C-alpha cells in the first residue's frame, strides 16, 4: 500500500471513529441528564425516545458510511493519483524548461570560450558602416 493510500484509509477510519464518538458523547450527555434527576417531571419517556432515535441514527450513519466507504476510498484514491500525476507532469515540465535553458546557456558559454581565444578585431568595418547615413 502506498503512503498516500494509507493516509486515505486513516482519514476514512478517523471519519468513522468521529461518528461513533459523536454518538457516544451524546449518549453520555443523555445519561448524565437522566441520572441527575434534575427535572421533577418523569422524563423516562423522553429519554427512551431519544435513545431509540440515537440508536437508529447510529445504525443508519454507520451502515450508510460503510456502504459508501468503498466508493469513497476508490474515488479518493483516483483523485489523489490524478492530482499526483498532474503535479509530476508540471514538475517534469518545469525541470525540462530549466534544464533546456541551462544547457543552452552552458553550450553558448562553452562555444564562446572556444571562439574567444581567437583574436578579435579592434574595430569592425561592418558596424561602423551601419552608423553611416
Amino acid at each position, binding site marked *: 500500500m502506498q503512503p498516500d493510500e494509507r493516509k486515505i484509509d486513516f482519514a476514512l477510519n478517523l471519519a468513522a471513529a468521529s461518528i461513533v464518538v459523536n454518538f457516544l458523547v451524546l449518549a453520555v450527555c443523555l445519561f448524565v441528564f437522566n441520572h441527575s434527576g434534575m427535572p421533577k417531571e418523569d422524563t423516562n419517556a423522553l429519554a427512551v425516545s431519544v435513545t431509540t432515535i440515537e440508536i437508529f441514527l447510529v445504525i443508519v450513519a454507520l451502515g450508510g458510511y460503510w456502504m459508501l466507504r468503498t466508493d469513497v476510498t476508490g474515488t479518493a484514491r483516483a483523485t489523489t493519483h490524478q492530482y499526483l500525476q498532474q503535479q509530476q507532469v508540471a514538475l517534469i515540465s518545469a525541470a525540462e524548461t530549466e534544464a533546456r535553458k541551462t544547457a543552452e546557456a552552458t553550450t553558448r558559454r562553452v562555444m564562446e570560450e572556444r571562439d574567444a581565444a581567437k583574436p578579435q578585431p579592434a574595430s569592425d568595418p561592418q*558596424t561602423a558602416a*551601419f*552608423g553611416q547615413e
Partner: protein
Amino acid sequence: MAIDSSELLHNFTNRPGGDITLLIRALGVTYEEKPLPAGQSGYIEYDGTGYNIVVNSTENARRRRFTAAHELSHYLLHRDLLDDTGKLNRHTDVLFGAGAASNPPDPLSPFHEAQANRYAAKLLIPEHLVKTKFEELEQDVAALARLFDVSQPAMKIRLETLGLLPRS
C-alpha cells in the same frame, strides 16, 4: 502565454526593413530613446524584473536602429550574463566613432561585442532575404540599402561578406 522568440525572429527576418523596436517590445523588453552622454550608443539593463533597452536619441536614425539591434542581440545571446544584483546589471555600448575600439565590455567580453555586432547585422540584413532581393533588384546596392533601411556602405560590406559582391 510564453513568448515564442523564435517565431517573432522568424517573422521579423522574413520582411526587409522591419521596425526593430516592435520586435524588441514583442519580446517583452522595454525600449526607450533618450539623450545619453556623448559617444554612448545605448545600453541594456536588467532591473530585477525585466530587461530594458535604451538608445541614445541624439544619434541619427540609422545608428539608433543598429544600436537597438545590437542591444537586442545582447538580450538574445547574453542576457544570462547580466547580473541581477544591481552591480553588473547594465551594459553600456559605444558602437560608433573613436570610442568604438575601446567599447567598455563589462560585464561582457570583447568577444560578446563582436558576436552582438555580427548578430545585429544578420538581424537587419538576413542572409536568405538579401540573397533573394539581390537577384530581384538586379544587384542594385542602393535599392537594397533603401529596402533594408540600412546605409549603402553597410549593405555593401554585408553583400561582400556573403560573397554576393567581390571584396573591395
